[in-house]
């Protein structure tokens, strides 16, 4: 059955290897130069100047072709792989056998369909995790200078593509062990959807819709609460430093003393602890007079910044929890496939 699974899976495996190879070529062509840019930017720094050097490096990088493009492409690829695998490996696994009536051939050989499914799910599922893991590792290797620069603690260039630490909404699911969980989940979801809908193309569409919904829902509503987030109130001089003040919002872009922390929510509050949604008119910079510093102005009126965040040290606990959740979901979906086939409703 292992050999037969491979015989049927060869085509999809070849496509995956081709994409893997193409991605590797792009990364190998651009990676070393990115590393040398980083090395030359950071060489002479020591202590406090390193944060500034890193920030300069990152700011310059956002306008240096092709690095922002490759960076976004790589992250996009790692994020999309579980969905693509679910669609093209998972959904057809059972649905196509039912659709083409070949189940009558496959399941009347001298092998039970439980074993047929067990081998198919195990091998293809492991391949799904291996491919996604490979993409993730390659991306991590390429982007290492960027993550090191972010790690040096300079505030990220606001509004650019490189504005997230490894706990960031998008980055988190592309690094560590999380991609393995997403890959297993995507594949199992596709397979189960195919087994239930019994038609390949609708199963593909439903799989895509569910995975996208999950990938949006997890960072927005689930991940922040996997571990109860920390809360801090920033006042005084630190409050002035919150960079996004300059673009007119009252949201914090970093947590003082917590480099790479993931901000779950933030907002200004007044002395009474009530939320302040806009900059008070008195503190607004006017175009005529010399503008008052809005931060200093607001701080003098007792306005502070309340931030709910996940500190960077929770990266691995959050990784393991999220991966565990998705592996458990994948196993449950695989169980659903066994149950569906075991009922013998062809």
């Amino acid at each position, binding site marked *: *059955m292992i*050999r*037969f699974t491979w*015989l*049927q899976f060869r*085509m999809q495996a070849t496509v995956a290897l081709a994409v893997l190879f193409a991605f590797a070529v792009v990364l190998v062509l651009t990676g070393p130069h990115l590393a040398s840019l980083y090395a030359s930017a950071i060489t002479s720094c020591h202590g406090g100047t390193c944060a500034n050097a890193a920030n300069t490096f990152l700011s310059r990088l956002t306008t240096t072709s092709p690095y922002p493009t490759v960076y976004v492409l790589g992250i996009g690829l790692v994020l999309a792989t579980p969905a693509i695998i679910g669609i093209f490996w998972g959904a057809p696994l059972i649905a196509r056998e039912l659709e*083409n*009536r*070949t*189940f*009558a*051939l496959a*399941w*009347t*050989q*001298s*092998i*039970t369909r439980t*074993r047929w499914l067990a081998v198919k799910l195990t091998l293809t599922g492991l391949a799904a995790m291996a491919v996604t893991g490979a993409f993730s590792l390659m991306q991590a290797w390429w982007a290492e200078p960027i993550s090191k620069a972010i790690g040096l603690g300079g505030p990220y260039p606001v509004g650019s593509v490189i504005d997230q630490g490894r706990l960031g909404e998008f980055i988190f699911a592309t690094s560590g062990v999380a991609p393995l969980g997403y890959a297993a989940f995507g594949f199992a979801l596709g397979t189960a959807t195919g087994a239930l809908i019994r038609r390949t193309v609708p199963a593909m569409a439903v799989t895509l819709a569910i995975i996208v919904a999950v990938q949006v829902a997890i960072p927005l509503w689930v991940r922040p609460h996997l571990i109860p987030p920390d809360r801090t109130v920033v006042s005084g001089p630190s409050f002035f430093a919150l960079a996004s003040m300059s673009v007119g919002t009252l949201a914090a872009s970093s947590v003082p003393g917590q480099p790479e922390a993931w901000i779950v929510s933030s907002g200004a509050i007044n002395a009474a602890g009530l939320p302040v949604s806009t900059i008070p008119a008195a503190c607004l910079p006017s175009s005529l007079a010399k503008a008052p510093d809005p931060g200093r102005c607001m701080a003098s009126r007792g306005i502070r910044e309340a931030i709910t965040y996940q500190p960077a040290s929770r990266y691995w606990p959050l990784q393991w929890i999220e991966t565990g959740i998705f592996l458990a979901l994948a196993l449950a979906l695989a169980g659903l496939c066994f149950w569906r086939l075991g*009922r*013998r*409703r*062809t």
Partner: protein
Amino acid sequence: MSFTMEASGLGKQYGHRWALRDCTLAIPAGRVVGLVGPNGAGKTTLLHLAVGLLAPTSGSISVLGANPGDGPAQLGRVGFVAQDTPVYARLSVSQHLRMGAWLNPSWDQVIAETRIEQLGLNLRQRAGTLSGGQRAQLALTLAIAKRPACLILDEPVASLDPLARREFLRSLMEIVAAQGISVVLSSHLIADLERVCDYLVVLVASRVQVAGEVGELLSTHHRLSGPRREASSLPANQEVIEESHTDKQSTFLVRTTDPVLDPAWTVRRVTLDDLVIAYMSLQAAPERAYRPRLRVMS
């Protein structure tokens, strides 16, 4: 007597619809059995139950004395060729043979290769580009080379042209002659089965209307024609299967093991085709099927 297939009160329900309901039959071993019935009679459902692709909703079925699809050994003892003979379009002929070898411990590569060679199939050709007849032959090869004790075929020739149909049935007869295995073969056309079957089961709306050896069926059914009479006036040992009347004349198809003695009748033999069609149309007039065998003569 041993049986290839035995079913008792067998039923399969999809939602509210019964694809097969309360089916009881026994198909003897060592024969080539034709399972005939109109479309929708439940033939495919019955055969899928027999190979374990489906599980019964009610009743029971055993094939070669065991529960269908119960473990690899039982799966290996039953060869199955499904309706429209599905194969993997993207795999080549030789890859199909490899699949058979990998998935069946009892696989006989010599049988498989000899057959493919005899058929003149190109081992490298993708199954998706084979003609319907070639595809059916490939499916039959896969079912045979695993050396099953019984071979079940679901409408294998329904979609084939007459020439391919004849070739396929000839192959099947050669296999039966060479390997002496039990065969169950379904069709909605008796013409397909006439040349290969020695035992016939007519299934209409899940019910076995008639089952028996072909020779015996032919010798116990007669077509009677003569002056107009009512069916109820026939002797009780003559079961009326079909009747038709004109103003002056009546024609009956009757089943009886005794000779027809009434001199008023012209007695003719029936063809298998007549017989099957007569039993299939019993569905339209179901009360005929329940006519008591014993009847007091008036």
